[in-house]
């Protein structure tokens, strides 16, 4: 029997939204390949696993052990690979988060599986499994065909629509395991205080060198706060030490695809465009009308950020 497994990622017992996008895709792949679909979650105490039913996945296995409460790449990979063994043909689907980026390839190596990371589209049936993924930070796309019987696939978050919850509840089976492979383990998690991360945010306000100095990023922060957006930065300002690398958007930073991306005083170097061009709506505010950022922007204002942004904050406040 062939099987499609989808990994539901939990942190602190709560399932990530991107995992439900992956669940919907897994169910679709199962339908197209005549396979069974099952969700797998690894953890200790986990809330609301039956919610996978909302996204067309009728069964969830909770692989449970006290030591699974915190992520461990070795423990999670061993537990998931062990669970995946047995079916003649298997597809294992993940959301391409920082957790899955680390341990999905470990699972692939354990299962001797063909691997496609960060997929943005797929075309599958019972005889062929084709995946599209961006390369060169999105400057090009490749179509690849996975030919091995076991396949591992990670999906770019925020690309696939999880659809409306159906209200159906999945059947949850708890599988207690006694051993955890804890060769590597998380001993502490440090949260950046109250900050949204560009990789996860559905709105991003980014600032560039046109802001003239790190002190002027307060403008960006204020606009971001008004919109509930994450703060991003261009490589130039990160290299200048104005902002931390974790905020950098672009080929040597993060590749993002939020619903709204506002680029303030960013000219749009090719490596920046590569990292954000797949955003759904792009707004550019820049003094230079010839700045390349306007070529990818849906809406642009040619003008001084120091005048435009405060006005924008004021207008947004009005409609709230």
């Amino acid at each position, binding site marked *: 029997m062939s099987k499609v497994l989808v990994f539901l990622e939990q942190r602190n017992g709560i399932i990530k939204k991107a995992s439900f996008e992956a669940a919907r895709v897994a169910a679709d792949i199962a339908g197209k390949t005549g396979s069974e679909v099952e969700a797998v979650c690894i953890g200790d105490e986990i809330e609301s696993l039956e919610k996978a039913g909302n996204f067309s996945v009728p069964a969830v296995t909770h692989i449970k052990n006290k030591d699974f409460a915190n992520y461990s*790449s070795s423990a999670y*990979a061993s537990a998931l690979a062990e669970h995946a063994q047995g079916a003649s043909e298997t597809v294992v689907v993940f959301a391409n988060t*920082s957790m899955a*980026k*680390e341990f*999905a*390839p*470990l699972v*692939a*190596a354990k299962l*001797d599986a063909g*691997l*496609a990371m*960060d997929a943005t589209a797929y075309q599958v049936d019972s005889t062929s499994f084709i995946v599209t*993924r*961006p*390369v*060169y930070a999105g*400057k*090009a*796309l*490749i*179509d*690849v*065909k*996975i*030919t*091995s019987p076991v396949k591992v696939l990670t999906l770019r978050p925020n690309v696939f629509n999880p659809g409306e919850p159906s209200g159906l509840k999945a059947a949850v089976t708890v599988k207690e395991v006694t051993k955890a492979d804890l060769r*590597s*383990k*998380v*001993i*502490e*998690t*440090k949260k*950046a205080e109250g900050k*949204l*991360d560009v990789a996860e945010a559905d709105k991003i306000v980014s600032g560039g060198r046109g802001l003239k100095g790190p002190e002027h990023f307060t403008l960006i922060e204020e606009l971001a706060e008004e919109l509930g957006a994450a703060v991003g930065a261009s490589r130039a300002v990160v290299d200048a030490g104005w902002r931390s*690398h*974790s905020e*950098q958007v672009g080929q*040597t*930073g993060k590749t993002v695809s939020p619903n*709204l991306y506002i680029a303030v005083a960013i000219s749009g170097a*090719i*490596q920046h465009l590569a990292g954000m*061009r797949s955003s759904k*709506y792009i*707004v550019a505010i820049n003094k230079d*009308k010839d700045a390349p950022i306007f070529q990818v*922007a*849906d*809406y642009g*204002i*040619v*003008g001084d950020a120091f005048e*435009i942004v405060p*006005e924008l904050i004021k*207008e*947004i406040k009005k409609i709230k």
Partner: protein
Amino acid sequence: MKIVVCVSHVPDTATRINVSGDGKNIDSTGVTYIVNPYDEFAIEEALKHKEKSGGETYVVSLGGDANKETIKKALAMGIDNGILLKDDSYRDSLSVAKALAAEIKSIGADLVFFGKQSVDYDSSAVGQLTAELLGMPLISVVVALSVEGSKVTAEREIEGGKEVIETTLPCVITTQKGLNEPRYASLKGIMAAKKKIIEEKPALAVANYVELLQMKRPPAKESGKIVGTDVSAVPELVRLLREEAKVI
């Protein structure tokens, strides 16, 4: 202590990418190739580790003759030995990892570094795959690292923060910007590198499980509209975002 750094040879990130005539690769005409930016942090970390605790360092790269440039750069920075696993053809991540793992096993490495991803295929997978094939634990996207005896503690970047992870040697580390400041090759280093011999051998032949069908350009984005050229355009922008795009 043997320390291995795996590096790839990639187009400069400022490169405009055009698809080649056969539709399966980029057109390399006029493209400048560089050491993969994330691999520079891997090289630097290997050198720092050797300076602190001693040992011998190796740089390994899989690819064609052009990869020797990148190997030479690592040697000029101070890596002791260079190895080129020759194969010019397309390989999927797992088959690259299998060839690297075979080589690393024969070296007998205690500590292996990769950049967290290469900026060409962007899979972010070869380091992890290689770790698993070697049976070594892995910590990826590392921004701080300490190795004391056989105990390894690292901080890795995750969404909205960092994780502190403990493991033991031998292990594989993939490096992220912020871990260190890669040194420039000194003149002395460059001269010394010229005398070092790059060992060349065929890469282990293994089947691909992932076939490359075609490379294509992303769909062109339609040019948007300039809403205005001064502050008076702001209300209209807000209206468009609210009513047309429905994003605020």
